[in-house]
């Protein structure tokens, strides 16, 4: 009987903890001979197990000792039971097709577009705009190379990512669920990873700019979801070449892990 108790003791103390990490496959910490996947301190919770039924699935977390991100210049770590060990990027550009109709030299034409981004286990991200201004086969609408006010009668194309009053369009970035967890920014000079930063000219209300290749949003750390609204303005002059103009904006998210 005593022999059985010893065997049970060995199994409980030794084998079960091994089993607790059996589901973890990715590598995070390494030395010359060993690597550590995910580390569990404290009590309660699970790094790999879930409660699930036919329709629902849930991860377990009870009495976590500490949660959140800790980082230095090179490495970072996430604490908490419900962490994931794989780099992640969620980049959603809400596809929209806006027809502004006939433009007028006496009033500004406006449109908006939205996108959101969330990344994980990264040093942050940048978002670039990589498309030429509105154009047809013969003419390209003049893009505002420096941040400028809307001036109907002057050929202009520009955008920004803040709320405006003249014209009344746009919205500031929204941190979802809050600024505690999400850090995306459009502010001029806001840092991204690896020495990058947001270009000037896209974060002042009523001032618009467009330069293909500019970084228009960034975060210098892993971030929860940030929802961005892009406001576009188009003005024409009496000499703006006639025809139909199309602007297909390609946004590129570049996370660095």
């Amino acid at each position, binding site marked *: 009987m005593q022999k059985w108790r010893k065997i049970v003791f060995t199994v409980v103390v*030794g084998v079960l903890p091994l089993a*607790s990490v059996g589901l973890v496959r990715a590598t995070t910490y390494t030395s010359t001979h060993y690597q550590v996947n995910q580390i569990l301190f404290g009590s309660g919770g699970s790094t790999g197990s879930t409660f699930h039924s036919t329709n629902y699935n849930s991860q377990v977390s009870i009495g976590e000792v500490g949660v959140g991100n800790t980082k230095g210049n090179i490495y970072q770590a996430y604490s908490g039971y419900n962490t994931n060990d794989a780099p992640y990027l969620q980049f959603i550009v809400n596809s929209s097709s806006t*027809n502004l109709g006939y433009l007028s030299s006496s009033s500004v034409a406006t449109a908006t577009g939205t996108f959101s981004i969330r990344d994980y286990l990264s040093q942050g991200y940048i978002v670039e705009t990589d498309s030429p201004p509105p154009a047809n086969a013969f003419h390209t609408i003049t893009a505002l190379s420096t941040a400028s006010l809307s001036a109907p009668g002057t050929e202009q194309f520009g955008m920004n990512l803040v709320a405006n009053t003249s014209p009344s369009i746009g919205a500031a970035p929204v941190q979802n669920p809050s600024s505690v967890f999400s850090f995306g920014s459009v502010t001029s000079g806001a840092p991204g990873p690896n020495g990058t930063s947001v270009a000037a000219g896209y974060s002042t209300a009523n001032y618009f700019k467009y330069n293909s290749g500019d970084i228009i949003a960034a975060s210098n750390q892993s971030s929860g979801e940030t929802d961005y609204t892009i406001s576009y303005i188009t003005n024409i002059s009496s000499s*703006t070449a006639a025809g139909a103009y199309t602007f297909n904006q390609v946004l590129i998210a570049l996370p660095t892990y």
Partner: protein
Amino acid sequence: MRYYPRTFRRLFYKGSLLSVATIVAVFGLLGIRPVNQVQAAQITTRSILMSTSNPAATANSVTYQVRFTAASSYTVKAIVVDFCSNDPIIGDATCTAPTGFDVGTSTPTIITCSSACGTNDATLSPTVLGSGWTAAGTNLITGSAYRTITLTNSTGVAVTSSSVIAFDMTNVSNPTTVGTFYARVLTYTTTTTGYSPGSEGAYSDYGGIALSTAALITITSKVQEQLTFCVYTGSCGTAANILLGDTNDILSTSAPAVNKAVNYSLSTNAVHGAAVYLKGNTLTSGGNTVPAAGTGISNAGFIYNTSGTDFFGLCSYNTSVAFGSAPTVTNYYAGTGNSGTCSGTTQDTGGTLNLTSLGGPPYATFGFNATNTATTYGDQLSNITAPGTSVNIVVLAAGVNATQADGIYTTTLQLIAIGTY
């Protein structure tokens, strides 16, 4: 057989169990396990920059720049980048190819350099790969599309934990669906990698990267065709009724009469510009006419040589351009046939007519192609080849000789502007 006291045997047995349990428990709790790859470490500052995130981008036209910092010191002779739609986890035996993806056929084109990358791709400088690398696409998806790219170099490049490795893949096909996909990056010290998902071989460094295609934001608009054209004296709206002559509206044999009161403004957004046509006849009085100036020698304009010349003609020049370019005036209406200028002429305001009104010497010249101006659409006076806004002057001139029949000579000239969109 040696005999140990029962108490000692119990302690030894308990101690052995406890030691085993402790070792197993510590390794288990910390999740520590030996690895297959000696000194394998995670690459840092790793990213893949896409030239476009458009899932509808032209196949095999997208460039990816793979960039990372080595994690340890060794000589890298092979780099594997495997693109998966399910996860970036090294060791996962499943790697599902992203829909529509291709690294660039079986022979992907790549750019590697270390410095002075110049026209190849300046953003690759400074990085360490240098030249001598070849690329192969493996893990066939379908047709000629492959999921995995393997770069090899038999000489290899020595790297340290601060070496930045980067290269361009220049004929990639983006996934054709919107959303996240992943790359698994591994480096090797031999050109034979033995890589397959879940059995990656003896790799040196490794890392996962997430990428995403995204939908486009499309804005369309139209600019309607516009043409604003006005012929006037003084200001637009004032009809150009010209009395050509001296104080008494008489043409003289001593010198031509010059009038510069006629303006035309032209503004158009026509992509291919616009043309202004002149339509009408020369001065006419019943059955008599003042001879048209014609197109002159070699179409350079009617050359006015002396007084007493019998002619009617005009020249034209630009006075202001608000946008675009000044109209190009048809050569025999440009006024330059005698090395003079149309703009140098002066308005005769009365009194005795004299040659100085011709702006010279050398005097301006005048033209009038009566053949063309009599046609349905008239004779081209000037044109622009792109949108533009300008104001221009038409200088009218007429002189007579002693044999010109008397009478009141008149003509009605039309200027017609047409845009080409």
